[in-house]
């Protein structure tokens, strides 16, 4: 039984929140244009792209983690990029975790935003064009506000899913305190070393957090679902 060390407990929590925060921001930046393209493009191969985006939903996290390890490692493109600033690899770093999390949580962000973009159809965009709004103007003044519920649930799901991530992180992040040792890995660690109190505190915290997130998503969905029309 290890002694209860609050700083040691807090470190993985802070790291996890940081990771989820950065990942969610990046996902909104990357996912929004991607969702827009998936919702509006008439390209025949867009469903192939959508499938690639959705694959983390079914792939075992270890598979994704394995390929990421190759890509981010010293012999992959990630190693080349790391070389630019004097590092050897992107694997086992916080940046590597962010890249992995972005790919892993992508479907949870892109799908709701895409659905929201598809839900209002062409009409509001046509109306905006007849009122002199350029496509760029229309995107910000009409499409994004109308898709707000999609952005909300996308952001919440992306954030929450990143927090619950385990397999991918174990493969590409390892277990470096303060750098890659996130919540789920820490819990695993505590259990392995039979530190039940610490495992209990973190696990119960996750249960409460998950409950709050799902409840929030559902309430939001209901509220917007009603006032949407």
């Amino acid at each position, binding site marked *: 039984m290890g002694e209860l060390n609050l700083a040691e407990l807090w470190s993985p929590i802070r790291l996890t929140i940081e990771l989820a925060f950065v990942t969610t921001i990046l996902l909104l930046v990357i996912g929004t244009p991607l969702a827009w393209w998936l919702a509006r493009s008439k390209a025949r191969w867009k469903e192939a792209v959508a499938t690639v985006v959705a694959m983390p939903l079914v792939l075992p996290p270890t598979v994704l983690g394995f390929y990421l390890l190759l890509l981010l490692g010293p012999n992959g493109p990630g190693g080349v990029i790391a070389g630019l600033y004097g590092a050897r690899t992107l694997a086992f770093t916080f940046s590597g975790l962010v890249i992995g999390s972005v790919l892993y949580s992508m479907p949870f962000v892109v799908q709701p935003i895409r659905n929201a973009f598809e839900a209002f159809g062409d009409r509001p965009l046509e*109306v*905006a064009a007849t*009122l002199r709004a350029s496509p760029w*103007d229309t995107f910000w003044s009409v499409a994004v506000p*109308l898709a707000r519920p999609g952005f909300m649930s996308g952001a919440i799901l992306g954030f929450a899913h990143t927090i619950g991530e385990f397999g991918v992180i174990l493969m590409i992040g390892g277990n470096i305190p303060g750098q890659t040792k996130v919540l789920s890995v820490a819990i695993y660690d505590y259990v392995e070393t039979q530190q039940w109190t610490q495992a209990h505190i973190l696990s119960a915290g996750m249960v409460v957090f998950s409950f709050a997130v799902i409840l929030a998503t559902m309430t939001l969905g209901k509220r917007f679902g009603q006032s*949407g029309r």
Partner: protein
Amino acid sequence: MSGHAREISMALAGPLGSFSLDVDFKMPMRGITALFGPSGCGKTTILRCMAGLQRLPGHFIVGEETWQDSARGIFVRTHQRPIGYVFQEASLFQHLSVRQNLMFGARRAGDAPADDALSFDGIVDLLGIGHLLDRSPAALSGGERQRVAVGRALLSRPRILLMDEPLSALDRMTKEEILPYFERLHKSLAMPIVYVTHDIGEVARLADTMVLLDKGRVVASGPLAELQTDPSLPLIAAPEAAVMIEGRVDSIDEVYALTSFAVPGGVLIVPGRQGAKGVVRRLRIAASDVSFTRTAATDTTILNCLPARVVSVDGHANEAQVNIVAALGGDGKGARIAARITRKSLDALTLAPGTPVFAQIKSVALVK
């Protein structure tokens, strides 16, 4: 494009569903032009092409501005065309209030000088939407939404207003509530309006010019009254066939409460006091309300018995009724009216083109 600066020219050719669209017509730069035809005749496609929302080879020239000319590779994108567009469903932005909806186009229209009729207050007043400004679109009735949509389009200071069946999604009561506003638009705005509809009643009340469409082709186009009395067109044979005539109030009989309207080739009497002398109103005469006599009847309850001349007689040999076009005035040079009578009466009175007759008009309705 000099020489035709005061007209609108439209030509399109291309595939449209199961048939092809091939139209080429001109419209005046004033008043309401109705694109009229059955569902699927291509009228909405034409309007969408005018707005640049859809693209088919052809040209669209409004006065001196060319918005599309495929031969010269010109295609102005929708947001760069100074048009106003009213969709079938009001399509207000749900995330904005009524006022924000109205300002959406106005803010982007640039600083073109707005005359009084097109100012914010002017439009709000014209459409009677002042009390709705701070509401959400979700809290409006169907008729109110459509009025706001019209206001929103007008506030973007268009050169031309395009309306795609703006009343067809509304019930009869709401239509009757909105039509007077449209008539006010017609009266107070100088800009041309293109109005797509499949309802001849709306054409009768609003249109000055009509483009008659069928299966992607222009069947006829021209002033409304001309098309309504053209025996070669299907309008005259329709069950609700009627003719619109512009009349000017000539005198009012205070004792009997009747108003006399001067129309080309005669005077028509309408019940009620219908405005001051000189006011121009639109009168509607249904073909089923017109009958003929060879001599002037003196013992009839029908007020309007006018000398006229038969212009044309059309009908099939085995059908009960025939369609007649007659021109008012003893010389047959006045306004044309349509009539539906039985073939038996036609033979009994031996009516033929040129025959002098008296037209008995059972009722004359004011449409605006």
